[in-house]
């Protein structure tokens, strides 16, 4: 796991998780909620997918679990996840890649068609 994962390995779920951690650290359910609201309900992560992706992102070093940010309640088992420098780079690369794809589509006039009613 030396290199950051090449962008074509980044699943939509991983992309959304990184994006939701870009502005601040969040706990797992917080990530789900943020993805829900940001995508207006179009992307719905289930708990299994969320934590499976978190597991993969952690082992790739793109995010890390943060124990210091845990809530004052000692019984609160929720860890907080934060994006790493490496994660931020991967996110930026992926976003640039998507931007290029959109630009290419625009160049071909794909986006000029009106949406069907």
């Amino acid at each position: 796991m030396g290199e950051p994962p090449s962008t074509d390995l980044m699943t939509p779920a991983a992309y959304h998780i990184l994006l939701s951690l870009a502005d601040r650290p969040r706990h797992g359910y917080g990530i789900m909620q943020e993805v829900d609201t940001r995508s207006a309900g179009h992307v719905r992560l289930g708990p299994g997918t969320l934590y499976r992706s978190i597991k993969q992102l952690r082992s790739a070093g793109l995010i890390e679990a943060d124990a210091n940010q845990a809530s004052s309640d000692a019984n609160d088992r929720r860890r907080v996840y934060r994006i790493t420098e490496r994660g931020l780079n991967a996110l930026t690369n992926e976003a640039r890649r998507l931007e290029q794809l959109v630009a290419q589509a625009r160049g071909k006039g794909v986006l000029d068609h009106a949406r069907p009613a």
Partner: protein
Amino acid sequence: MRASIRISRQLYRALISLYPRSFRAEYGAELLEAFVSIGRSMGPWHMWCRTLPDFLATLVSEWLDVIRSGRTFLGGSRGRGRPGGGMSFDIVADLKYASRQLARRPGYAAVGIVTLALGIGANTALFTVVNGVLLRPLPYHQPGQLVTVWQTYLEWRDSPSPQLRGVWDQIPASYPVYEDWLELNSVFVNLGAYYETDFAITGGDRPERLRGLNVTFGTLAALGVPPMLGRAFRPEDDRMGSERVVVMSNGFWRRRFGSDRAIVGQSITLDDVSVIVVGVMPPGFYFPDQGIDVWANMDDEDRQLGRGITASDAVIARLRPGITLTHAQRDMEAVTERIAEANPGQHEDRGVRLVPLHEEVVGNLRPPMVLLLSAVGVVLVIACANIANLLLVRATGRQKELAVRSALGAGRWRLARQLLSEAAVLSLLGGAVGVTVAVGALRPLALLLPPGTPRASQIAVDQRVLMFSLGLTIITVLLIGVLPAITASRTQIVTVLKDSSRWFRRAGQGHRSQSMLVISQIAFAYVLLAGAGILVKSFASLLSVDKGFTTENVLALEVRPPTTRYPNDSEVRQYYTRLYERLEAVPSVRSVGGGCCLPFTGHNSSHSIVVESDKGEDEAIVDRNVVSGSYFETMGIPIVAGRVFHGGEETPVAVISSSMAHQFWPGEDPIGRRITYRNHSIWFTVVGVVGDVSQHGLDVLPRPTMYYAFHQATYRARMQTILLRTDAAPAARAADVRNALWEVDGDVPVRRLSTMDDLISMSVAAPRFRTLLLSLLATLAGVLATFGIYGVVAFSVSQQTQEIGIRMALGARSVNVVGSVLRRGLVLASTGLAIGLGITLVAARVLESFLFEVSPRDPTTLLGVGLLLTAAAMAASYVPSRRATSVDPVEALRVE
């Protein structure tokens, strides 16, 4: 809500335990937290919808990861016996071992697989129906954005008439109101008005009556389904003076025009008017229900109707993106207020109500479907209890083997897992067989559905159904596997291995679990059987209702002479006179009559009248029927007093029903009394009283009814339902009748030709469906529970073979032995029955809305079902008890 989340939480915790240990240990607690948070914010239904498919997918990928890395394989050799440690290869080995074990005992495996297949199959089949009818999205573009818009009228909510009360919040709009909505709203992309009508198509070999929908441009536009050929409607089709155009359904296009693509742009004749075909819809498209043949634009007459409250335009709309239902409702309320301000005195007390289209289509199917789905779920639980029992018996029978393995170093978890694997193999095979059977059973099941069930053709196995079955199978593994696994893991090595006195041991842990299982089976079976029994009783009393008319040998059909050929009343009357003369000449027809409103067809007409009484004048709303020919004779409605119409009356006369006579002239002679319409100057004299008729269905009390003679009808009566009483089976006369009708006029189509018996049968199709299905499920539950008792009693007898042998050798009589075995069965049964009775009494409320003249706690049924199950339990216990007494003491003692 709280309780359901708590139960879901426990279930999900169990599911999490199926993940590989490393994943579970790292994220298990957080998974559970997230799951519960979803439940709190979205409710348990969404919680599961969102979690179950996600769980299955990630479960598989996590295990694949584990297998690929081989990590835990190494870990497994280190941590032998540790729960969850080193599993991937062991699991495969476990499953193989379990399959071999099962293959060695094919009878036992078959019982398990068939039982589970029944449970999972029945659930899958019913869920497929529920999925097709209730859950699947409507076949339109983004169907979640579609709503229907109704007017509400507060004055009707508190009206004494149950009919008005029933519709106060779903009143169609009038055309001007629709136009106001269209202009003033800011929340809809499209808004369309429509009403159903029928057309006669002529100009081919035979006239045909079509179901049509008159629509405005917005209706098909809102649905967002493009036509397959030609075009849909355009805004200019709604303008005054526009020509009439139609879009055809695919089915009608194929049936009548043999899929001729050149039909687009040509004209056809509907109701003697030439209209242009502009488009054909794709196959599978329907709106508002299957069976509409053509959609036509409205004509100028439709557009000129006034603002009256009795309007006929249903309105459908598509919400603008991002607009919620609540927002749209508020906006439309504001629009309604503006309309009321602009039209003082005309729109007071009127409101507006938006209903999601999906809710409108399937809303009232939900309660019976949920009832049946719960019942079939209970059947699966009972089936699982049976198999859990079988596995427990197996675990007990294998105690020695398990103890030896334990002594050789196998951990408890290892032993438990082996029994879980057996449960998994049984469930997977049962699930596979069950789903296969369910797919095969779909067609017969769909045929059972009441006619007119919306979206019945949508019933098919799809991804959601398969996910459901898979989820069910996993739950089944847990239900049947956990108890035996726990029992096995508690095996006490020392006790078992040195146990030479096993046969004196009384019921231990295993027996207690078994008894609990059987008791819960009986309790559940009782609940289902009692529910089914009460529904059957209710259905029987529904069928035994005195309808007030006789249905044998009566044929009914609808006729409407088209306006273009018969423009005025006298021509319409002449047509019917000629028609009746001709029909009476058909062989074996005894009498012919006609009425506007045939019972049980949903047709109905009511109006306000003023009656003369001793106290002055009374005003009331009564049902109205306009009859012709020998209506009363043909229907077999008895004459209670006076006479019925003879057809030659000059002065206006009326016949009334017994309940109307009783309501207005109690204890007096109504003959010669007078009745008039509200705001009307013609007075009708009562000439006769006839028996009451259940006009609105068997479960609705007859309402006061007034009959007019067709030749004196004061409004333009055109359509009549013709009734014929025949000597022979009426269906055989159908062709003769149709030909006679076309002899009189070949361009008048026949509609809804059926026997009266069929009409009655259709009207009770819904209660018949749920009664039949629930009875089937309850019977299955009863049979499974009986086998459950048999299994437990037989096993406990086999465990006590030696004890019984010694008792017999010491002189015990077989009666005593049989008695003690029966007693065990009876104790189990009566405990289960008591619990079942308790549940039934509490849950009875659920059934209330489905019942007719029967209490949901009907004591006879509750007692009868109790006796039935007791008898079954006794029979199930008697068989093993006989076997016990045939034990040869010498043999019994030699077993050790």
